């Protein structure tokens, strides 16, 4: 196959519908001078007439785009090379009639020109042009207000393409402006949305009601809503939602981007804003229209006392929104992720009437989003979307699409190495999960990378493990059982016990086993030299944790982090203020409205049959919408009593120092990786290490190994019993009986 290089068209050929080829290629394709030729290009195709190149050279192709598929309106990509198989002669007959939409440049022209004149002109312009059904004809070379003609149908119907002669009838179905036509064209390519059905339904209703039933609304004496404010964290799909809904309703969209409006000269920004409203108004005359102000907070911040230029811009927007008369049928949609920094005057009925809050997606929403994203990917049978949705807590729509992209990239990389069919498997998703993190946790204080710890790696403490599993793992694994028994997930767990008894490790294991987001904070993160900063940081932490619930928030050494009010001395210290924040966040009066997620759905009892997995996910959502606080301390007496009541830290678990059995188990775990001599009796060691904590035992094993190395001069191959015994004799336990008894007294 010979390849042809596509060159840009000569200026003298512009508007001629010619396609310049080498004469040799023309005769091999059986083409005459001026025969119609269908060229298929990446992303569309084009109908032109074949002419030999003036220099008769082969291997090049120059096309004048006159009649082409609508997807090529924006022009051809540069540096394209085609195959000769992409050219095919198109049989053309003389057409009897053509039905078409005329696209004109300005609304003025459409209004002031009568249709018979347009008909006459278009007919004259189209004479001699080869057309294909559902293609667009470019009339820009005439340099009039008539820009394009979109062919809808041709007669005779059996033909796909034909030539328009002076006898061909022309029927004009509609006259549109270029802007309107382009926006309709663009919208056909937007991907569908997942998980935003409810929000988009309410938005659609607002757009459609005044259009479908204008009389009903006027008879009710109400004016239709004019403004909607979309609030939500970045990446949840506010912008995509608006574009999608606008496309579904068939409205035109006027987008305002922040930097476009703001000008350098005084008064310039206001002028641009007025022009934007004027544009929306003229677009609204053609059909429904949405004026979309993205990133509203940066454009219209709170007005400050000084005469900042933003103040005037805010004032201009307020007057423009008030000045919209009832006949202006366009809707203003604003989107922001920081509603608090908006000017309060904007957020009243009559301006932004409604506020729609789009929170971070819930489990079911994530599942919907993932299934939409995976629809277009060749997904292997191993991929379980429900499971993926469970793992991806805290991921917003943008994260999920990044995740899918990354997974596809992994599959691609693998495929390049070997060969085989393109399938994205679960393992690719798992690889991608390591790279793509949830964006609502990005920049968060407590985001920690933990090395996974399995329950088996912790020796002994079976009772404590069971309790922890009950409160963390069970609600995730068996939500339906919890719902059945009317249980809800505990709000918080306090682990207390002497130091070195695996409290932190237990929490790590719990976080590993339950697939939820895990945040951990220390005093270094929270404390700040500024008054009020620490409290703000803690509240922010809770907000982020709630956004990606279910989430475990781990406060290690809570006694020093959060003080107690009974402490004498400083009644108004940072610790006390932090305590009040914590109390409020754990069991406060409610959430901020901005943090709403999903819809207020109770467990459905509707007749709709739902699959079991769906039901299960639903249960899980109901149970796990909160943040669980896990705290650890070794001074339980220093904790404020208000924190310890049920509803806050419900489960108070004592992590005891290991008893004989536990010590044995710990020793087994610790010596698993060590070459221990077969004569070593771990039972004896366990009985000799009373009052040793887990950390002590681990240390003991290390000491014994070091001792073995020391004695046998780096050539030790196993550790003997004597090494253990000697290191026991050198060490002393870190716990004392008195210390242990002090833990037992206040809680018994």
């Amino acid at each position: 196959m010979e390849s042809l290089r596509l060159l840009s068209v000569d200026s003298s050929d512009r508007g001629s519908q010619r396609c310049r080829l080498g004469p040799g290629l023309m005769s091999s394709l059986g083409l005459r001078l001026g025969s119609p030729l269908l060229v298929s290009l990446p992303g569309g195709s084009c109908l032109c007439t074949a002419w030999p190149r003036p220099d008769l050279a082969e291997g090049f192709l120059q096309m004048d785009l006159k009649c082409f598929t609508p997807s090529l309106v924006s022009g051809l990509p540069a540096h394209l090379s085609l195959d000769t198989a992409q050219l095919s002669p198109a049989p053309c007959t003389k057409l009897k009639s053509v039905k078409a939409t005329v696209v004109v440049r300005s609304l003025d022209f459409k209004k002031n020109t009568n249709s018979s004149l347009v008909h006459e002109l278009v007919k004259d312009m189209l004479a001699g042009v080869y057309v294909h059904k559902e293609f667009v004809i470019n009339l820009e070379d005439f340099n009039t207000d008539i820009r394009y003609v979109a062919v809808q149908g041709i007669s005779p119907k059996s033909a796909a393409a034909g030539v328009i002669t002076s006898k061909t009838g022309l029927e004009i179905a509609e006259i549109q402006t270029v802007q309107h036509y382009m926006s309709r064209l663009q919208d056909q390519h937007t991907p569908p949305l997942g998980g935003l059905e409810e929000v988009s339904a309410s938005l659609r209703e607002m757009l459609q009601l005044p259009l479908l039933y204008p009389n009903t609304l006027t008879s009710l004496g109400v004016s239709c809503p004019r403004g909607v404010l979309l609030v939500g964290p970045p990446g949840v799909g506010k912008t995509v939602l608006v574009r999608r809904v606008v496309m579904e309703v068939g409205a035109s969209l006027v987008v305002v981007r922040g930097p476009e409006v703001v000008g350098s000269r005084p008064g310039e920004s206001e002028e641009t804003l007025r022009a934007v409203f004027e544009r929306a108004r003229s677009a609204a005359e053609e059909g429904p229209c949405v004026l979309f102000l993205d990133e509203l907070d940066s454009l219209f911040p709170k007005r400050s006392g000084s005469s900042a230029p933003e103040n005037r811009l805010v004032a201009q927007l307020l007057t423009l929104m008030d000045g919209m008369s009832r006949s202006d049928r366009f809707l203003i949609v604003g989107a922001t992720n920081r509603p608090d920094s908006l000017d309060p005057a904007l957020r009243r009925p009559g301006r932004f009437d409604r506020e729609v809050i789009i929170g971070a997606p819930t489990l079911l929403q994530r599942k919907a989003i993932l299934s939409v994203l995976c629809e277009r990917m060749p997904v292997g049978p191993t991929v379980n979307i429900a499971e993926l949705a469970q793992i991806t807590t805290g991921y917003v729509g943008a994260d999920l699409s990044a995740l899918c992209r990354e997974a596809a990239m992994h599959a691609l990389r693998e495929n390049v190495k070997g060969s085989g069919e393109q399938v994205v498997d679960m393992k690719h998703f798992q690889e991608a999960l390591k790279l793509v993190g949830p964006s609502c946790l990005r920049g968060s204080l407590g985001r920690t990378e933990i090395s996974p710890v399995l329950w088996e790696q912790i020796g002994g403490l079976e009772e404590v493990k069971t309790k922890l599993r009950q409160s963390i793992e069970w609600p995730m694994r068996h939500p339906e059982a919890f719902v059945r028994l009317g249980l809800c997930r505990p709000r918080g767990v306090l682990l207390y016990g002497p130091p070195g008894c695996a409290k932190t490790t237990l929490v790590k294991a719990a976080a590993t086993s339950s697939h939820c987001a895990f945040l951990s904070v220390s005093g270094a993160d929270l404390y700040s030299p500024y008054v009020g900063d620490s409290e703000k940081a803690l509240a922010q932490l809770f907000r982020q944790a709630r956004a990606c619930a279910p989430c475990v928030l781990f406060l290690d050494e809570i006694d020093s982090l959060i003080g107690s009010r009974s402490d004498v001395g400083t009644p108004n210290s940072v610790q006390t203020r932090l305590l009040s924040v914590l109390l409020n966040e754990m069991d406060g009066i409610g959430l901020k409205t901005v943090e709403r997620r999903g819809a207020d759905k109770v467990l459905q009892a509707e007749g709709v049959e739902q699959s079991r997995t769906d039901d299960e996910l639903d249960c899980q959502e109901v149970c796990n919408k909160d943040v669980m606080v896990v705290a650890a301390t070794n001074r339980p007496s220093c904790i404020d009593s208000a924190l310890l009541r049920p509803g806050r830290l419900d489960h108070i678990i004592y992590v005891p120092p290991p008893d004989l059995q536990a010590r044995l188990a710990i020793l087994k775990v610790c010596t698993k990786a060590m070459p221990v001599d077969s004569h070593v009796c771990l039972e004896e060691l366990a009985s000799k290490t009373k009052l040793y904590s887990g950390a002590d035992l681990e240390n003991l094993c290390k000491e014994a190994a070091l001792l073995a190395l020391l004695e046998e001069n780096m050539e030790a191959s196993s550790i003997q019993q004597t090494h253990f015994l000697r290191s026991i004799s050198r060490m002393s336990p870190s716990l004392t009986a008195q210390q242990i008894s002090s833990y037992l007294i206040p809680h018994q």
Partner: protein
Amino acid sequence: MSLQGAVRRSFVALRDQRAAWRSVLEECDPLMESLGNLGEQMNALSRVRVSDTPLRAFPDLQERLQFQLLQAVDLLLQRLRDRMSCLQSIRDSVGGHVSAALQLYQDSADGLDVAVATQRSSVAPSLADMLEWLQDAERFYRRFLQRKTLLLTLRRDDRAQLEGAAKAWRSLDSPDAEQQITDNLCRLAFFLESQ
């Protein structure tokens, strides 16, 4: 060869019509000038307040003047439209010749290979070139639709548009394309005389 003859006839017709085309356009130019002038007068009239001038003694002066100007505009437009129909007839005749030549080629194309059609000689360009030039010329004459659109969408009450009409008219001249036709005719001199 009859195809050669048809092409030759088309070019001869094109050469003859070219002068007529130019003369009609030249007639149009002063008319457009006066149209712009009228627009200016109307503009001036709308700005002046007759009641503040000594002319206030004449009743309804402003309306009468306005009416007269509009009448003049109508007259001018009428004359321009007559010229347009002249242009249209020229274009139709050129278009008729061109499409007849192309049709003749289509009918006899089966016996005519592309290689033969692209053969050039020292005295005559190739058939492909000539057909292409004919099409180009037809396309050039079809551009008069721009002028037609301009005139037909002109509204008498839009003073700014009237004033700018002359300028817009002049901007529609495309001397390059016209020169191209002249050049092509020069290249064909031997061919046209060879009959």
